[in-house]
Each structure stands twice: as C-alpha cells, then as structure tokens.
C-alpha cells in the first residue's frame, strides 16, 4: 500500500536537498558560529548565507532576519516582545478569534497580566477595534485550519489611519512560500514563519523584524541573533531551512498546481451527499477543510490511517478540543465534530486524491453513523 501523506499543514516531508545540507553541517561544518577560529568562521558563513537567502526571499534586509526554533517561539517572541517594548504607550492589543494557539494562548496570558485584548471575528470590526492606545495588532496571513487568506494590506491601512503606535505582527506560518508576502511592501513590522511547513526540518523558524521596530527578547544570555534570540544557533536546522527556502518552486506555478488538485478534490467530494466543504473557494488551495456528516473526525482519521492515508482532524494543534476556528465560523456542532483537513504539498498528485475519495466513500458505507 502506497503511503499517501495529505497532512502538509501539520508538517511536511523534509526535501532531499535539506537532508544533504544538514548532514554536511553536522559532519563537516559542525563548529559553533560564535567561535573565533576557522571552524567557527565557516559555521558563521553558513549561518549568514541562510540569512541572505531568507532576506532575499522576503525582499528584506539581512539585518531584519532573526532565526528562532519555529512558529510557536516566533509568535511568542513577536507578541510578548512587541508588548514588552511598547507597554508604556498603551494597554490595548487587537487580534482575531481565529489565530493559532501560540498566539491565542499568549494573548490569554497577557490578559491575565492586565492588558486589554480585543478578539475580532471579522476584519470589518478592525477599524473600530484599533484605537490610539493599541500597541499590537496580530493576525495570521493564512488560517491553518481552513486556508482563509486574511486582508493584510487592509490591516496596515487601518493602523495608519488611527495613528496608533501599534506594531503589526503577521503569523505567516501557513503562508510563507505559498503566497507572495513582502513585509516591506505590505507594511508588516514583524513576520513569523516556520521551517517544517515548507519541507525543511523541525526546530528552525524565521522572525522578520522591520528595521526601526523594536521588541524585547524572551531569553537572555548571549549575543546571538543580536540578543533577540540568544543561545547557540541550531545550525543544521537553520541550514536545512535555508535549502528548503532555496528549493521552493515558483510560487505562481505551484499555486496553479494546487488549484488543480484542490478543484479536482472538491469536485470528487461534492458527489458524496453527506460531505460539506467548509473552506470556500477563495481559500488558499493548499488546504481543504470538509466534514463528512455523521462520522466523527477521529474515527475517519483512524480509518484512513489503516489505508496508509494521513490527514488531520480539524486542526492538528487543536487535538482533542473543539476547533475554535470552526466555532468562530459559526459551523454547527455536527459539522465541527466531523471536520477533516486535507493539506497538499508539491509531492502530491491527483491519484492521491482518487485514493482518498475512494477511502472516504468506503468509510461512509461501512462505518456506523453518529446521530
């Protein structure tokens, strides 16, 4: 049975180029980038080369790129770092109710600390939510559960109109490498991304911090990453990520390929009477969220896993809990409990979708339905 991996928003298979680079770093350039000798110098050169690759990819300056351990650390650094730097200028933070838990739970901690956090449900509410004493606006570029694309450009304009000192953070974990995101052009102050969502290894991430914007660090004890993220850099992971970025396919071409896969999958699913597709057609085509009414997400997931097909229930990070995103979308409990997320990568093909749909139909015919 061929393995069919359709859970690429949870994580991706590491590309071969990244694997090879990591082996090279671990066996040859294993020096500490901070060491003064040649071994260290070589390692530092590798590190700075990745910084350049990432900066070029984002049309940013090298000095604006910091390495983190991944999306969650990046988001925590962005949220707490920005609030820490600006807390004298205001007490209000604006975010959406559909953020990833690494942002939502950071916000909850800040609420406990006395900050006023506004969770908007739609971007129409943004203009009223952002005030003169707002110090941070944080939103994701693409939702991890549904693929919804948020209107980043609009957010910047609204912040500008209010004359608030707010820093604008964009969680781009699901968007990086998939849609064009040039922080300078879009007026983003802080952008976070993760390596393992783009065929790089786990344990590396990117934090873009606009020149002139200031955040305070979460960790202390070293000069690395200009003190924003001290600690010896995980060079194999970072260099693996560099290769992953370098080997990202042309964005337009890949988007077109994803559209093909997405449309194909949608068409096939539509033929099943109790399937309800939760992602709309404006969503990023990498993700389709749908519900097979009557079959619990987890049951379906385990059924498919026996067929060597891997997908996600609702959202990988909301394991076991009712998805707050689908709840915020106003979906019925029935649909939320049976929600599934399929997410594609460049390694998928139409035949993978054929297998998936075949298995879903079989499950539909054999599994006991809940009422």
């Amino acid at each position, binding site marked *: 049975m061929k393995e069919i991996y359709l859970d690429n928003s949870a994580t991706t298979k590491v590309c071969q180029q990244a694997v090879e680079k990591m082996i090279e770093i671990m066996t040859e350039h294993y020096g500490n980038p901070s060491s*003064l000798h*040649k071994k260290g*110098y070589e390692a*530092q050169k590798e590190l700075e080369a990745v910084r350049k690759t990432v900066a070029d990819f984002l*049309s940013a*300056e090298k*000095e604006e790129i910091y390495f983190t351990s991944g999306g969650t650390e990046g988001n925590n650094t962005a949220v707490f770092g920005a609030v820490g730097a600006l807390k004298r200028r205001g007490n209000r933070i604006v975010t959406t109710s559909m953020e990833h838990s690494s942002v939502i739970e950071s916000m909850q901690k800040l609420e406990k600390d006395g900050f006023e956090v506004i969770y908007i449900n739609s971007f129409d509410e943004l203009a009223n939510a952002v005030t003169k004493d707002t110090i941070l606006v944080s939103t994701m570029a693409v939702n991890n559960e549904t693929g919804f694309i948020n209107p980043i450009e609009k957010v910047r*304009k609204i912040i*500008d*109109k209010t004359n608030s000192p707010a820093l604008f953070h964009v969680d781009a974990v699901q968007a990086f490498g998939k849609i064009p995101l040039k922080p*300078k*052009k879009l007026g983003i102050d802080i952008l976070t991304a993760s390596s393992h969502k783009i065929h790089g290894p786990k344990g590396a991430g990117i934090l873009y911090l606009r020149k002139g914007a200031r955040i305070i660090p979460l960790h202390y004890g070293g000069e690395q990453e200009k003190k924003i993220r001290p600690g010896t850099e995980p060079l194999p992971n970072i260099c693996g990520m560099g290769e992953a970025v370098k080997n990202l396919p042309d964005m337009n071409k890949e988007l077109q390929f994803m559209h093909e896969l997405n449309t194909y999958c949608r068409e096939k699913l539509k033929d099943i009477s109790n399937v309800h597709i939760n992602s709309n057609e404006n969503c990023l085509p990498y993700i389709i969220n749908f519900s097979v009414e009557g079959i619990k997400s987890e049951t379906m997931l385990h059924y498919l896993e026996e067929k060597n097909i891997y997908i996600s229930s609702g959202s990988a990070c909301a394991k076991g809990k009712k998805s707050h995103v689908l709840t915020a979308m106003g979906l019925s409990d029935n649909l939320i409990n049976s929600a599934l997320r399929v997410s594609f990568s460049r390694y998928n093909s139409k035949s993978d979708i054929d297998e998936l749909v075949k298995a879903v139909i079989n499950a539909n015919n054999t599994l006991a339905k809940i009422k």
Partner: protein
Amino acid sequence: MKEIILIKLGEIVLKGLNRKNFEDALMRNLKRRLAKIGEFHVQIAQSTISISPVHDDTDFDEVEDCVSKVFGIAAFSRACVTEKDIDKIKQAAVEYLADTFDTPKTFKVEAKRSDKKFPYKSPEICEEVGGYLSDNFPNISVDVHNPDVTVTVEIRDFGAYIRAGLIRGAGGIPVGTGGKACVLISGGIDSPVASYMMAKRGLELTAVHFASPPYTSIRAEEKVIELLQRVAKYSGRMKMFTVPFTEIQEQIREKCKEDYFTIIMRRFMMEIAEEIARKNGCHALITGESLGQVASQTLNAIECTDNACNMPVFRPLIGMDKEEIISVSRKIDTFEVSIQPYEDCCTVFTPKHPKTKPVLSEVIAEQNKLDCKGLIQRAVEGVKLTNIE
C-alpha cells in the same frame, strides 16, 4: 495602467558646455544599476529622464530604491502615463491615485503644459482634474495653500504624466565624472561614510584595506567587504586591495618608540595606498579622519601623516562630530556592520599613551630605523584583489 519613474536632474543642469558629459555619465550609471533589476527603457528629454519597464511585472519599489541611490539626481517621482486626452487623464488620475488618497485629508492639483498644442491651459487642467478627483474622493478636500498631497499633471511631447509628490534623490553629481580616488578603509564607522561622501561628489572609488593576520581575522576583512558592498549601492562597483600588513606592524613594534607607533603605521598606510592608487589611475586618497577624534587625528598627527604622501588627501569628515557621522552611516546602512566587534589593524598594538603632538622630524627619524623601502615593496607585491559589485 503604465507606471514610470521621472527623474529631475541635480546640479548637472547648472553645468555649461560639458553638461552632456554629466548627463551621459548619469545615464550610464542608471542603466548599469537598473540592469540588475530588470529590463528598462531609459530616455532623456527636456531635462527629464524617464525610466519605463519593459515588462509589466516589474517591482517598482525595487526600482525606486535603486534610483534613490544614484548620484546626480535631485528628485524623482513615480508617475502614470496616459494619452493626451483630458477624459483619459481624469480617469487615470482617479485610478492611479486611489492608494495615495487613502490617508491624506487635503490635496491640490498643479499642471505643467510644455506641449502648448494641448487644448486646455494649465489652470483649466487643474480645474478639470481637481474637480473630478473631488467628486470621486468625497473624504478629501482641496486646499491650494497647504495640501497634504500635491498632484502634478504634466503635458509633455510624448504623453501626459500624473504624479503625486516628489521623492528626494541622492543629490550630488554622477559617479565617474570627477575621476578616481582611493579610499583607506578599516572597517569602522567613519571610512564608509567618507567613501559615500566623496562618491557623491562624482568620484569613482578604489579601496585599500590593511590586514594583519593573525592579529586580525578573516572576519574583519569580510566585514570590510560587506561595508564596501553597501557603499557600492551608491558609488557603483569598485576594486578592493587587501594589503598584508603584519610584517610592517611587527617591525614597528620591535624597533620604534611605542608612543610613535600609530603615527608611523599611518604613514606606512598612506605611502602604500598612494602607490596602489597611482597604479590604478587614482588621483587622490580618501580617509575618514575627523579632527581631534583620536590621538592620531590631531592637527599635529595629521601634519605628520599627510607628509608621507604626495597626492591630495580628501578628508570629508574632518569637521564633523561623531554623532553627525553616525547619522550618515545609519542613512547609508553601514552602521550596523561597522559596529561588529572584530579587531582591525588600527587597534593592534595601540600604544598606552600615543603622542598627540608628534614632531615630524622625530617621527621620520624613528621611521628611518626601518627598511621602509623593502617593507613597502613587499606589502605592495602581496596585495590581494577583491571585486566589489
């Protein structure tokens, strides 16, 4: 909608008969820099240069960044081109200015009609376009005395241009029109700023860096390369020569009085730089000295170093405070690189109490204890060339 960039020339327009040379140099520099971004038509007509991209998907922010770093340009603007037809101009203005008109509160329209065959006179153009804009952006009102945005409509020979606001250019005169000079670069804050300032006055640059391994590291040299790459965004490409300086520093340390160490070292640097400069067609040296900043930059010290070379030495920072220098270095993006903490040749063997008022004759007497000719010859023979793009 076609977008272009319009450039207003700087002090070039004040030049007389050789104005063409300056314009040609500017066009050459612009074309070379733009070639790195994409394909463009660059034309000059009626003292204005226009840059129009060949392909529609050109990133205009990148073009803007590139143009803002070319010397010889006083100001420039992004503009939209339309046919010379009042209705088309009005339509295009609303479409093109939608983004710009999102935030300001007031505006006014100015018109320049260099094509006198156009049926509307300038005030009429203002009235037509201004009225149409007012109708379409009800939140913004006209203020002719103190507007947030000034929209300019230009009726020229080849078409009508609509633009909002001017962006300040890099100023100065085109690189290359003033000849070539050689900058002594250590890796600190000052020398990149000095390089930038002289390139601004039209000089093409060559750089000389002194390396003293193992007292200085490869990182210090890499840092200089990175600095020069940033300067090159303004000055254009250049050659960098790295001079092996270890032997000279060790010899001075061994044979000369400690308090003269820095002065003698600097004299060697000037002599070596001069020789490299001559070989490469340069007619001046450039240093980042600022009067009184450190012991080697007092009047007496500069008198002693200056004496070591016969070329004119340009010291554009001589009357500037450190704070002023830093603000330029931030502007040209070299500051963050400059402050990386790697030991450079100037800080190796610094004397505890350097002489602030060295006497030239004594300095020369000290220096003559060494085999100056041989030392300089070996250093010059050992130079390494790096091309900076």
